[in-house]
């Protein structure tokens, strides 16, 4: 047999023509995905990259104090810097003070070492009257921070353009004067507690959701359609209802004079004048989040359980297994993908939860998201908010990655 090529009707080899058609189809598919892909890249993926960038970006202060940093390059850090350095600082600070743009500098340097804010504010007021000589003396007379080596070391430490100090702060660590990483002072260690609390709440909410969702998903999957459709409404109505509506109903229920407390008093579990605080603490966060996230556990479990044939359990029984062994050895293993999907969904939603903890959590029930929002809206430390956000994002993506390795990501379903 000769190696003759098969030709299509227009004389081109079939292989080539097939490849051409394939390529055309591929391009067509890419063309369809293109608009959304571009949109998501520009408005979502790049901004998240920008957020990463912001969390390590420390160039603002470099731009504000160029002369000072240059003069400090040769400073050995043992004694107070020379007159030149003070003059360089004057050259940098005087225009800032005149243009009333020094606010950001106080803020930045005060993150580095507290005391800068008051020192710089005073210098800001006095600098107009400085004579154009003897800078060192005049600075030292203005405020005591200029007489201390630590403050100059702190300024020198801010010279690099990039800094991961915000990440250290998110883990309750910090740099000391010699750039060693040390623990934050005892009374300022708040973030580790927050991370632990967030993980704790997410974990227990997932566990509670699982315990509550497993039996009802089983019931929904085994009842005849007629009844299960009706009961499904109990799951789907909260699912479609506004998060704020559900949170406000919990605020009504859990308040001091609310129905739940009435019930507790009526049952005699607490005295009327000593009603327990159910809201503005972790209890409120737990209860409300469990109810709000429960549908996300029920739906994947239900869709997996629906596919398990009841004859399997009957077969188990007919082979002599008790209901318990049939359940443990047959039914439960078959529901594992559903459990995985449900737990993943609930855990990840819970770990980034904001609204409910902010409204019913109070101070002791607030989570990491609340801190991120606080730094975004109130303290305006956007770099720190970005660093915390990046840490949370890395955590979430790691969980996804592990889940994908263990169970496979593509069995997440909606409803």
């Amino acid at each position: 047999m000769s190696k003759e090529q098969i030709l299509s009707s227009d004389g081109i080899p079939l292989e080539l023509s097939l490849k051409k058609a394939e390529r055309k189809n591929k391009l067509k598919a890419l063309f369809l995905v293109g608009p959304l892909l571009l949109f998501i890249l520009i408005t979502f993926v790049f901004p998240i990259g920008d957020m990463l960038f912001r969390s390590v970006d420390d160039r603002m202060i470099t731009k504000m104090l160029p002369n000072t940093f240059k003069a400090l390059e040769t400073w050995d850090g043992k004694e107070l810097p020379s007159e030149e350095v003070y003059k360089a600082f004057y050259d940098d600070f005087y225009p800032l003070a005149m243009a009333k743009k020094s606010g950001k500098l106080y803020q930045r340097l005060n993150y580095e070492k507290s005391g800068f804010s008051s020192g710089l504010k005073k210098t800001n007021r006095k600098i107009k009257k400085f004579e154009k000589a003897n800078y060192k003396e005049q600075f030292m007379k203005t405020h005591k921070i200029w007489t201390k080596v630590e403050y100059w070391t702190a300024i020198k430490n801010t010279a690099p353009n990039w800094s991961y100090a915000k990440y250290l702060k998110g883990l309750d660590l910090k740099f000391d004067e010699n750039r060693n990483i040390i623990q934050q002072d005892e009374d300022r260690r708040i973030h580790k507690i927050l991370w632990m609390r967030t993980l704790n709440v997410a974990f227990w909410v997932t566990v509670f959701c699982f315990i509550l969702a497993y039996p009802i998903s089983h019931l929904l999957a085994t009842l005849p359609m007629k009844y299960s459709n009706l009961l499904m409404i109990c799951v789907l109505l909260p699912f479609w209802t506004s998060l704020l509506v559900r949170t406000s109903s919990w605020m009504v229920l859990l308040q001091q004079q609310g129905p739940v407390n009435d019930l507790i008093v009526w049952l005699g579990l607490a005295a009327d004048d000593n009603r327990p605080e159910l809201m503005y603490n972790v209890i409120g966060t737990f209860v409300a989040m469990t109810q709000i996230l429960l549908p996300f556990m029920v739906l994947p479990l239900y869709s997996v359980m629906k596919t398990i044939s009841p004859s399997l359990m009957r077969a188990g029984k007919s082979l002599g297994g008790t209901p318990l062994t049939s359940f443990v050895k047959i039914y439960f293993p078959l529901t594992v993908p559903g459990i995985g999907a449900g737990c993943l969904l609930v855990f990840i939603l819970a770990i980034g939860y904001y609204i409910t903890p902010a409204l019913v959590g109070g101070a002791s029930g607030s989570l990491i998201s609340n801190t991120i929002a606080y730094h975004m809206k109130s303290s305006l430390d956007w770099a720190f908010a970005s660093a915390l956000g990046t840490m949370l994002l890395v955590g979430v993506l790691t969980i996804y990655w592990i889940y994908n390795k263990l169970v496979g990501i593509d069995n997440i379903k909606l409803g």
Partner: protein
Amino acid sequence: MALPNHTPWNYRIWHYTYLFFCGLVFFFLIAPLFVILPLSFNAEQYIHFSAKMLALDPEGFSLRWYEDMIYGTKNPWGLATKNSLIIAFFATIGSTLLGTVAALGLSSRHMPYKAAFMALLISPMIVPLIISGTAIFFFMAKVGLAATHTGIIIAHIILGTPFVVITVTATLTGFDHSVTRAAASLGSNPVNTFRKITLPLIMPGVISGALFAFVTSFDEVIVVLFLAGLENTTIPIQMWVGLREQLSPTILAVATCLIIMSTLILVSAELLRRRSDRLRGINR
């Protein structure tokens, strides 16, 4: 679920315990929503059941909080409703268009790196909202769209598209591609085939995706909280502000309206799902 007569007593107890537990969980799920309804008709300014309400005295009930919601001078609900509807409307259209077209491409068997593209396109659903909010805020501030309707609409399109992509792709997995080839062989051009064959078949998926996108936008707080100025306030923002200050009966009236709306959405989503199953059943 009646038990057979010969069931031993210990299984019987176990079975009823199980049913009782399930009943409690269903109650836990649904009851909180129904607490709001009667309280929104409270005649007094408190948000707990008054003695008159418990005695079912008609004087204990009134519509004053609904009047306050609509006519109250200080209440921003009118503006909030208008904004919410405008934003949700455009966000839904945007997400549905972009998402459906992308889902068509993703479902093609010629699509390269399907899993990677899919992961990228549904990433806004995976990333915690507080992070999306932060990142989108930086972006909008940079391009000058912070505190504008356009900015919020774009943000909500980002958050809504994953739902459309997922529901439409799910509808397309049961899709029999030979019908489009049949149409082509009968002389139909691709546009007509899409309009007359593909679209009607995937319509339930498209609409339920659109419903998801609408609800996502209508209910979204965090991103709007970062982006919105006073002019762009929405219903969820007003509820958030109100709940932070003080739980007022007017908020419960708004919540009741929202519950009625979600019931309507639930019913339509359910009808669509059944229709989709039926349509795909014919295809198989």
